[in-house]
């Protein structure tokens, strides 16, 4: 009895699948993003950017979206990814903010052969030793953002650096990548500390300790509310005037810099997107985004935009189903808001520019002053054997 029912269900399911793929125009996409919890703001930015790309490409009609709340929890993320693939039968998935969620869904995505476009999560393994044909990342890898900064800081004459980051996988990866290239370029790490992740509100004790090590500069990775708290406390402890603050650009992301206020002035960081990139593509994008949402786009919005854009490009190139989308995604290449964007066929990670920028005052508000560009940063394969 049960087997009959199962067979009937399977038949229905595969019929639905055939129906889906029969209409080339109808691409079903599952958006897996946090809608609640501390990452909800990022989820919203990514979704806004994603929708903008579909509209801009004139493809809103052709894509059917199913949205699920990952709550940024691995367990929930896996359950929702399985739902999107097995029940909704999506042709592609987009999203994933938390690296832990990406790690959790990796095997399932790889096994079910559904293309996944990662729009944030940066864990190096996802396009390194755990890479998959089916996982394409248009956001960044943790190493990609921090490695160039090590060389750059050594080049401008910084010799001794103290590092701080939250004590979780991403924190360690960001700092490790920076420290490795900084030391290779002749720099010295005079001390480093990892603060309890998500629980540290008071950086006072760590800042006091960092100051006592008397470095030339401090390099940190913090994001979200920890970034706001850190930047403000760095300033209030009076460290900023003696020891310049550097970091990965999430520290002074446009999304959070308003809450940081004047404390963020003078902080120098690196990121794959800054709203002040001076290209026609970016100016048009920023203007369109501002007109639509009445705020400047953050790097997260651009990641969402590019996640939508690569799908549109893949469909324009003739992709219609899971297999052909997977096929086309690895060939996508264009010049977008963040400059040239290419998917690396060796790892499926994005190849992109990294921008060094300083946060400066601009009237009453703050803006990003570009001070350096490291062109076309490409991650080594790190054990990935796609090619």
């Amino acid at each position: 009895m049960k087997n009959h029912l199962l067979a009937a269900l399977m038949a229905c399911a595969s019929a639905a699948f055939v129906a889906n793929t029969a209409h080339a125009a109808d691409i079903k996409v599952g958006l897996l993003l946090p809608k609640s919890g501390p990452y909800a703001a990022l989820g919203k930015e990514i979704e806004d950017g994603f929708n903008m790309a579909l509209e801009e490409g004139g493809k809103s009609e052709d894509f059917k979206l199913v949205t699920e709340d990952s709550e940024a929890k691995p367990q929930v993320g896996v359950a929702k990814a399985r739902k999107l693939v097995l029940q909704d039968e999506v042709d592609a998935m987009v999203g994933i903010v938390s690296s832990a969620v990406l790690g959790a869904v990796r095997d399932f995505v790889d096994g079910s052969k559904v293309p996944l476009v990662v729009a944030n999560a940066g864990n190096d393994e996802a396009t390194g030793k755990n890479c998959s044909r089916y996982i394409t990342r248009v956001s960044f890898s943790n190493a990609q953002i921090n490695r160039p900064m090590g060389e750059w800081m050594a080049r401008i004459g910084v010799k001794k650096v103290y590092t701080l980051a939250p004590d979780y996988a991403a924190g360690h990866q960001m700092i490790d990548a920076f420290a490795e290239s900084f030391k290779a370029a002749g720099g010295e790490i005079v001390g480093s500390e990892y603060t309890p992740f998500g629980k540290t509100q008071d950086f006072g004790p760590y800042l006091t300790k960092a100051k006592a090590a008397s470095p030339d500069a401090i390099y940190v990775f913090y994001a979200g509310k920890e970034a706001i708290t850190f930047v403000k406390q760095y300033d209030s402890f009076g460290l900023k005037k003696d020891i310049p603050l550097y970091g990965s650009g999430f520290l002074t992301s446009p999304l959070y810099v308003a809450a940081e206020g004047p404390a963020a002035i003078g902080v120098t960081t690196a990121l794959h997107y800054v709203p002040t990139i001076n290209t026609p593509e970016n100016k048009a994008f920023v203007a369109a985004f501002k007109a639509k949402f009445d705020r400047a786009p953050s790097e997260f919005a651009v990641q969402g935009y590019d996640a939508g854009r690569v799908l549109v490009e893949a469909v324009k190139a003739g992709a219609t189903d899971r297999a052909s989308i997977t096929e086309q995604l690895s060939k996508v290449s264009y010049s977008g808001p963040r400059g040239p964007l290419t998917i690396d066929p060796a790892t499926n990670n994005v190849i992109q520019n990294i921008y060094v920028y300083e946060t400066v005052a601009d009237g009453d508000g703050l803006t990003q002053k570009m001070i350096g560009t490291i062109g076309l940063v490409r991650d080594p394969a790190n054990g990935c054997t796609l090619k």
Partner: protein
Amino acid sequence: MVADADFWLTQFLNGMQLSMLLFLLSIGLTIIFGLMHFVNLAHGALYMVGAYVGVSAAASLGNFWLALIAAPLAVTIVGIFLYVAVIRRMRRAGPMNQVLVTFGLIFVLVDLVRILWGDIALGMEQPAILSGPAEIFGVSYPAYRLFIIAVGLVVMVALSLVLSRTQIGAMVRAGVENDAMASCLGINVERLFFAVFCVGCALAGLAGAVAAPVFSATPSMATDILIPTLIVVVIGGLGSLGGAIVGSLIIGFIQTFGAVVLPGFASVLVYVLLAIVLIAKPAGLLPARS
């Protein structure tokens, strides 16, 4: 580790700052606990509301000090509403139901804050007079943090005086010690509870507004602060001012010095301490009832 006296003095001030913030939150909670055996998990959510009201008031009124008055007032009004709508009816419902209802209140308040203020953390500027570093005992320390310590100490002294020297204080102490006896003596315990509850709300709102310039306002602060505050209350012993003071100082200093001396274990130290205290003294260090 190479560290001089200045280093340890700065860390001492860091510990004091955290302790005073915890004290502002835990004192309201512990007296409500002690007086009415009421478990109010939504206390942290009131702290969050205080921070958001503080941010908005500072932005719209353009004055930090007015924000510092507006936040406790607004939170007290929210508290009175909660009291009338929910808490008064739950007085005799037993601790399990109280835990659940106030747990529900956290969900509601956090989502209302998300709807009203959004998901993105909001910052609040320190008043100009407190924005720079100040010299104290020869070290340079953020003036605003000294202000937090001062606020905590002022509240601490004021509450000690009220509790030990005034008639209201005597009534509260009597209520904590034995509420049945207190009401036999003609004390309106219900009204007393309401008054204490309002003061607790106001202090939570004050703590939120005072903390906002340092920590910024986020929806997650409601639950982030809850556990440390509960730990303070439980370690100190329910219902006692002395317990709240001792508990705040212990937790504030353990967290601060744990972060310096044993960075990897900073987050577990507090729980280890909690377990040890409870195993050794199951009613906390300074319980109000003997």
